[in-house]
C-alpha cells in the first residue's frame, strides 16, 4: 500500500479542525463525527447529490427550437413543466422496454441466485475435492468488466466461431441463431448470469461459513441427508443474505445496459430502446435531448427505490436500517 493521494490532506485537515473545535480535549466531541464524515459528504454532494438534483432540474426544462433551427438564437431553454415526463411515459417504446427487463429479471435473478446458492452449498458441504478449484473458477468472471464479458460472449455467440455450434453441427443438429428475436433475451441474460454468479456465490458462501458446524452435525446424527440439511438448516439461516443478494440483483436488473449495448452492433434484434437505460442513452446521446433523458432517469430511479424498498418492507427485513 502506497501513500493515499488527494484525500489525505483533506482528511488530516478535518482532524486538525476537530482538535481546534474541542477546547476541553476529549470532553466535547460534537464536531468529531462530522469531521470524519466530511470528505465523504463533500464527495457525495459533489458527485452524487448535485448531479441527481441537477438531473431533476433538467427534467423540468426543455429546449425550444424556432424556424429552421439554424443560426444563432434559434434555440432557447425554457421551463417544460411535466411535459418531458408525459412524453417519456407515453413513448411507444417505453412500456415494451420495461416489459422486456421484467422478463429479463425473471430469467436472470432466479438462475443466477439459484446457481450461486447451489454452488455455495456444494462447496460448503465439502463433498468434493473440486470445491476449491470451482470456487476460484466461478468467481473469476467477476474480474471481467461487463463490456469485455459481452465482447467475449459476442464472439462465442457467432455460429462461425462458437465451439458449441461446432459440437451441435457435429451431432447433426443445427445450432439456433442466438440473435434471433426468440433467443436474444437469453443471450443477454446469459452474460449477466455468467458475470454475476461468482460474486453472489461468495456472498452466500461467506454466510454459510458462519453457521456453526455442530448444527449440521447434530442433524446428520439424527439421520438428515445433505439435501435436508441444506433446505431445513442452512438456507433458513442465510436467508437474510439471500434477501440482500436478491435486492442487489434486482437493482442490477433494472440497470442492465452494458451487455445489450455491446451486443447491439452484432444483432438486428436489439433496438436502441431495448432497456430503459438504453432509452436514456438514446435520448441523451443520439437524440441530443438531455431533458427527456433526465426525465427517464428520474422515472427509473423512483422505480428502483419503490421496488427495492417495497420488497424489503414486504419481507420485513431490517437490513438497511440502523441498529441504534
Amino acid at each position, binding site marked *: 500500500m502506497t501513500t493515499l493521494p488527494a484525500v489525505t490532506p483533506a482528511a488530516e485537515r478535518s482532524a486538525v479542525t476537530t482538535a481546534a473545535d474541542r477546547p476541553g480535549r476529549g470532553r466535547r466531541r460534537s464536531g468529531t463525527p462530522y469531521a470524519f464524515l466530511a470528505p465523504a459528504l463533500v464527495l457525495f454532494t459533489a458527485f452524487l447529490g448535485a448531479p*441527481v438534483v441537477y438531473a431533476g432540474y433538467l427534467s423540468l426544462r426543455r429546449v425550444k427550437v424556432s424556424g429552421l433551427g439554424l443560426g444563432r438564437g434559434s434555440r432557447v431553454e425554457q421551463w417544460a413543466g411535466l411535459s418531458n415526463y408525459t412524453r417519456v411515459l407515453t413513448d411507444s417504446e417505453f412500456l415494451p422496454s420495461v416489459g422486456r427487463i421484467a422478463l429479463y429479471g425473471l430469467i436472470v435473478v432466479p438462475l443466477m441466485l439459484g446457481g450461486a446458492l447451489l454452488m455455495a452449498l456444494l462447496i460448503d458441504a465439502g463433498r468434493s475435492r473440486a470445491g476449491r478449484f470451482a470456487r476460484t473458477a466461478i468467481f473469476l468472471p467477476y474480474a471481467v468488466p461487463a463490456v469485455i464479458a459481452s465482447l467475449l460472449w459476442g464472439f462465442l455467440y457467432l455460429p462461425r466461431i462458437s465451439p458449441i455450434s461446432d459440437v451441435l453441427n457435429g451431432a447433426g443438429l443445427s445450432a439456433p441463431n442466438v440473435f434471433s428475436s426468440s433467443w436474444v433475451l437469453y443471450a443477454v441474460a446469459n452474460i449477466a448470469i455468467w458475470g454475476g454468479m461468482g460474486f453472489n456465490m461468495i456472498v452466500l458462501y461467506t454466510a454459510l461459513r458462519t453457521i456453526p458446524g455442530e448444527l449440521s452435525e447434530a442433524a446428520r446424527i439424527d439421520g438428515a441427508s445433505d439435501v435436508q440439511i441444506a433446505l431445513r438448516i442452512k438456507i433458513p439461516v442465510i436467508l437474510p443474505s439471500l434477501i440482500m443478494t436478491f435486492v442487489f440483483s434486482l437493482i442490477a436488473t433494472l440497470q442492465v445496459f452494458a451487455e445489450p449495448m455491446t451486443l447491439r452492433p452484432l444483432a438486428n434484434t436489439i433496438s436502441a430502446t431495448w432497456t430503459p437505460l438504453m432509452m436514456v442513452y438514446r435520448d441523451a446521446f443520439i437524440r441530443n435531448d438531455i431533458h427527456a433523458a433526465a426525465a427517464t432517469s428520474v422515472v427509473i430511479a423512483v422505480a428502483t427505490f419503490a421496488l427495492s424498498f417495497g420488497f424489503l418492507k414486504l419481507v420485513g427485513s*431490517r437490513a438497511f436500517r440502523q441498529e441504534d
Partner: protein
Amino acid sequence: MAVATAVKARTRRSPAATVLLVLGAAYCLLPVLWVVIASTKSAGELFSTFTLTPSTHLFDNVAALSDYRGGLYWRWMANTALYAGVGALASAFVSAMAGFALARYAFPGKSVIFNLILAGVLVPGVILAVPQYLLLAKVGMTNTYWAVLLPSMISPYGIYLCRIFAAAAVPGEVLEAARMDGAGDWHAFARVALPMMRPGLVTVFLFQFVAIWNNFMLPYIMLGDDRLFPVTVGLSGLLNQGATQPAMYTSVITGALLSVLPLVALFLSLQRYWQVDLAAGAVKA
C-alpha cells in the same frame, strides 16, 4: 471453524457434487479459455481455424498491440491502474472514516445522512455521467485525470459496508480504552480502528476497484483525449472504428486478455479477504 473442518474431513466424497461443481466451473471458464486461445491466432486464423485450436501468434499479437499508436495500449493500462487503484484506495479510506463515524458516534442528523447515502446505492452510473460532466465542465475539469478520479472516490456502497465492518470489528470498549489513554479521536481511528477494519477495507477496496474498472460511461463521456482513456474505453474504440476503418479484432482480443490478467492475479492473491456478508447488519438488528 476447527470443529467444522474436522466434521467435514470425515464426510464421504460425492461424485454428483463433483460433476455439478466441475460443470459450473467449466461454464465460467469457457469464455476465458476462448480468449486465451483466440489471442494466439493471427487475424487470418481467427475466423478460419477451429475455435479451440491454439496457434503460435501470441507474441506477434502482443507486439502489434504494443505498436499501436506508439504503445498507447500500455498507457491505457497504466491509466486504468491509476483510476481503479488510486480511486479505490481513496474510496476505501473515505468510506472507512465515514463508516467509522456512522457506526461509533451518535450525533444529530445521523440517520438522515445514512439514509441519503443508502439512497445513493440505487443511482446508476449511466444516469450520473451527463450531469457530472456538465457540472465538472463548470470548473474546467473535464478531459483530465481528475474528471474520472474524483467521482470514483465516493462509493455509497463502500460506506454502507464500512459501517457494518466498523460496527462488527471495532468494539466500543477498545475505543473507550484508547481515549482513556489520552488518544484523540483521529488517533483512535487511525491507530486503533483502522487496523481492526483492515480485512473489511480490503473488500471495500476490491469492490470499488471493480466498480471503477467496470464504469464505462464516466470515462467515455469525460475524456476527449485518448491518452487519458482507461483500457475498457480504449478497447471499445479499437472495436468500433467507424465504417471507413477495419476493426482490429486480434488486437482487441489480445488487449482484452492482457487487461484481465492483472485483475485476476489481484483477485486470486486477495481471495481470502473476500468476506462480503451483505446481511451482517440485518443479522445484528
